[in-house]
């Protein structure tokens, strides 16, 4: 099957007794918007790192659009994925244009074509007026938007976002979510993690809830809500599966 296929992923970090992933498996179809949800410490970030090839799994396999994520195909996978990390992975002392030009150059883009693309996205994300302002002078929402642009300069087929709307205002969140829908409409797949379950419910076609390094439930969010009569929204479903105990 095409799309994102994760099978029996296991990972224990050095110095850690408890495994972070204990045979995690799920699959998302190509061309959709999928949500990887779970409480703190569930293993979401580790899973994303393994999907990107940044972290090696102890065992198990990952296939993205039919290409296995292994040493032989790591470079090929890099071409098809774009990642928006939780941190603002930009140089705070440089302006948005300088940052985006640099990352564009690293992808091999240059000259007028690159500058036009950067300006297009800056306009789209409402940052054109601050294009030459240093990133550290940006508001939280502006930083998040610039962070997304840096991940899509090479038009990835799969966009992975780790908490893309954390700490942003409603306006910025709406703009980001609208962009994700539009980008998905252009044929790209989106995998997204968030603690904002209402947001996930509104944009995700399928979700996987993971906890303690394992898959708990997988499916369409609305179907999952209907499946549990006592649940009126995705947050209820989430609490139903993961419990109310605090996670540290």
């Amino acid at each position, binding site marked *: 099957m095409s799309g994102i296929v994760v099978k029996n992923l296991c990972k224990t970090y050095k110095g850690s007794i408890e495994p972070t992933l204990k045979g995690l498996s799920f699959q998302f179809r190509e061309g959709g918007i999928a949500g990887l949800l779970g409480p703190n410490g569930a293993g979401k970030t580790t899973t994303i790192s393994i999907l*990107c*090839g*940044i*972290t*090696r799994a102890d065992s198990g396999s990952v296939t993205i659009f039919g290409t296995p994520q292994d040493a032989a195909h790591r*470079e090929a996978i*890099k*071409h098809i*994925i774009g*990642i928006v*990390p*939780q*941190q*603002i*992975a*930009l*140089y*705070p*002392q*440089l302006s948005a244009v*300088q940052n985006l*030009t*640099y*990352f564009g*150059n*690293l*992808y*091999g883009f*240059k000259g007028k074509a690159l500058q036009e693309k950067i300006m297009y996205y800056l306009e789209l994300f409402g940052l054109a007026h601050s294009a030459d302002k*240093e990133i550290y002078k940006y508001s939280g929402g502006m930083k998040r938007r610039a962070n997304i642009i*840096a*991940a899509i300069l*090479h038009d990835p087929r799969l966009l992975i976002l780790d908490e893309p709307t954390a700490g942003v205002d409603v306006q910025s969140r709406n703009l980001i979510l609208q962009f994700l829908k539009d980008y998905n409409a252009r044929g790209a797949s989106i995998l997204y993690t968030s603690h904002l379950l209402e947001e996930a419910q509104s944009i995700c076609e399928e979700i996987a809830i993971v906890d303690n390094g394992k898959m708990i439930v997988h499916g369409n969010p609305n179907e999952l809500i209907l499946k549990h009569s006592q649940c009126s929204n995705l947050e209820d479903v989430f609490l139903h599966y993961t419990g109310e105990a605090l996670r540290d």
Partner: protein
Amino acid sequence: MLRLLATIRKEWQLLLRDKTGIILLFIMPVVLITVMALIQDAPFRDYQDIKFDLLTVDNDHGKLGRYVKEGLSKSGQFNIIDSLDGQPLTAGQARDLVNSGKYKISIIVPQGATAEIVSNANKIVNDITKRMGVPGSLPVKQRTDSVNVTIYFDPAAKKAFKGAIHQAVDNFLTQVETDLLLDRIKQQLRRKDSTQVATSDSFSIRLQAVGLKELSTGAGKQLDIISNSVQHNVPAWSIFAMFFIVIPIAGNMIREREDGSLLRMKLIPGAYLDILGGKMLFFVGVCVLQFYLMMLVGIYLMPLLDLPRLVMGYHQGATLVVAIGIGLAATSYGVLIGTVFKTPNQALNFGAISIVIFSAIGGIWIPLEVMPEKMQVVGHLSALSWGLDAINDIYLRNGDIAMVWKKVLMLVGVSVVMLAVAGYIEKRRLN
């Protein structure tokens, strides 16, 4: 190539916006080398052109006392002081003044010292002439006293300094004794010749048949320079400053790791080596720029501060190669520190302290030659000492690339090792 050039441009943009970084890399080293050259000027002149006050007590009032005073005065290294407040200095005063540290040396020529030398010379000449059958004898003291010229040193005086003074006074004693002996021989020969043909020329004795001449060891053009404060401090502290590039590099790498830009770079197709290469090229360039800025300070600023002008030797190509080698070692060390440590604070503290230690043992603070033998062995393990040695080879010994290539190779070798260790650590971190 695009990735490499883009990284160089990005580092340049980052540096331009980092005013503190620019001050740390360019302004602070200028201040450092200026201050160090100024404060170390006096110690470097110790045995060169600084004059010491020397207390002399001449109780002899004869030829020896005069010779010692005139000889030491002519050497240009001493101000002869033989009276205080218009009163002739006494042996007791001289000893107390030196003991209190107000003066470094005093020399006391005892009463009858010249008479003792004259008597000894007369005795030798009488023995010789008697064996030659020459009539007449010179007066000799019946009783031989043990006479010594006394030297008092400041208890804090360095051993080498004491040795030099000892040697000088001993030379004067030998000279006086030799002069008097020759004088007595001439007298006796004149007495003998007065009965035959008397010409003063016939008594000329050429004492020094073989002279002493100092020449430079350098091949080709000769460098007429001595190691002075500027000649040591400017290259030495420039190398020290170049190694301080470790701080911005390590900070830069840790920040990239913390804020996720490193992750982003590694997710972009292509070898990370291109990006690292661009980063290293940029910082090596900064190091070389720093080096030449410091050299300009040595050439143009130091003379304005009454310090000697820096002499850079005749092989500028070799200097550039050495500067690149030092820059490469410094940059690689920064990459290693930036990989090993997890926070900028750890990297900053370890980086700064380790450079101070490597520079201290590597002969940056004081020349390696004046360190204890065991420390010299340890010092030669410091990359900073290889760089300084190579620069000294070019600046002081008129060396060319053939003379310094081994040291440059050592700098490149240690850089490769540091980068390999950093690569291994990074790879382990991924797993």
